């Protein structure tokens, strides 16, 4: 196994782990905002890692370009939609759980 393959495998593994933890977080966390925290961060980084891994596999070609475009796109849209979501939730009057209500 060559170095770049090994590297991509590691990246894939890391990405998968992040995504999985994010998924569990979304399922387990108590309210919208914490779930968003779980989803948003892991999504972006996990996606980055996986796409990077794929780029390593792809080598220099049109495919690489496309992967980069997808990556750029995800990097821009991911946080943006998280932001919009959070804002909308806040405006709609969903309050984050704090203090005592969290312990319940």
């Amino acid at each position, binding site marked *: 196994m060559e170095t770049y393959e090994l590297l991509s495998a590691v990246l894939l593994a890391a990405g998968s782990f992040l995504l999985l933890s994010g998924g569990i977080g979304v399922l387990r966390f108590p309210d919208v905002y914490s779930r968003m925290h779980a989803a948003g961060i892991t999504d972006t980084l996990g996606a980055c890692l996986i796409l990077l891994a794929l780029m390593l596999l792809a080598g220099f070609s049109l495919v690489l370009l496309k992967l980069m475009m997808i990556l750029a796109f995800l990097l821009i849209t991911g946080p943006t939609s998280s932001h*919009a979501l959070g804002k909308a939730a806040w405006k709609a009057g969903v309050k984050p759980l704090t203090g005592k209500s969290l312990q319940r």
Partner: protein
Amino acid sequence: MLIATAIGIAVNRDLLSVVMLSSIYGLLSANFFVTMDAVDVAFTEAAVGAGISPLLMFTTMAIVGRYEKLPHRWSLSALVLVSITGALLLVATMDMPAFGAPDAPAQQHVAPRYIEQSGQEVGIPNIVTSVLATYRGFDTFGEVTVIFTAGVGVLSLLMVGDRATKPLSSHLLKASQHKILRIVSKVLIAPILLFALYVQFHGDYGPGGGFQAGVIFAAAIIVYTMLFGLDSARQVIDQAWVRVMAAVGVLLYGAVGVVSMVNGGNFLDYDVLAKDPLHGQHYGIIVIELGVGITVAAVMVLIYFSFAGRLVDRGHQDD
């Protein structure tokens, strides 16, 4: 998972969640299509099932209200009817060739010719595109007409008078709060439009084609409309012009057929469009795909404008 989603849709009473689930359902089925090698179909299903149709449904919901009023009762007669249909399909399944079998009749008769000879006869790598555009080009013409018909139908149902001169409604003014969204979208719209063009002309080689490109193009415009308001979108793109474009797309497609007829071939026979049949096929496919793209984009924009126009109208009534 598809089944689970479908059941979820059946049970849920909040229409918003229903539509959300149906969007997920669209994504899921698209995934399924990818694993079944149907990349073009997945492409379209993603754009339609997960994109356009939930969007339209949301807009509708904003107008008609979000919740189902009546509690749901299990309807026995419906259940019986559905069971009969299911049983019929079950019966059908009994004698079907096994899934994936290469010797099934469906794989034997007509299809091999497409796979083996379309390379020489049409000269483009994407077999789906060549079947779509030449062997069964008339079906695609019908498909464009269906889209056009739907556009005409929606227009005639939801047409409102000339609203361009009306002042911005309160609903649209509120949109100005979305600074971040606006900036990001502004940056993204140009690449999206470029990407649409890429899909349009790359359809010969990879998945994609006129329909998908049209939907993406329309999606870009719809994003703009959502964030900057209907009126400013209408200033950029005149609605009457969109109407004409919808018709032009169909006519373009038909014109290719008529030209090939004038040149001595049958309707939609691209071989006669140029001296070399392969070139003729190329020209034909490019032009008809363009026709499809134009009509689809125009009709989608038109439909969205009509829906949003109703939404804005209601805003006026509320004020």
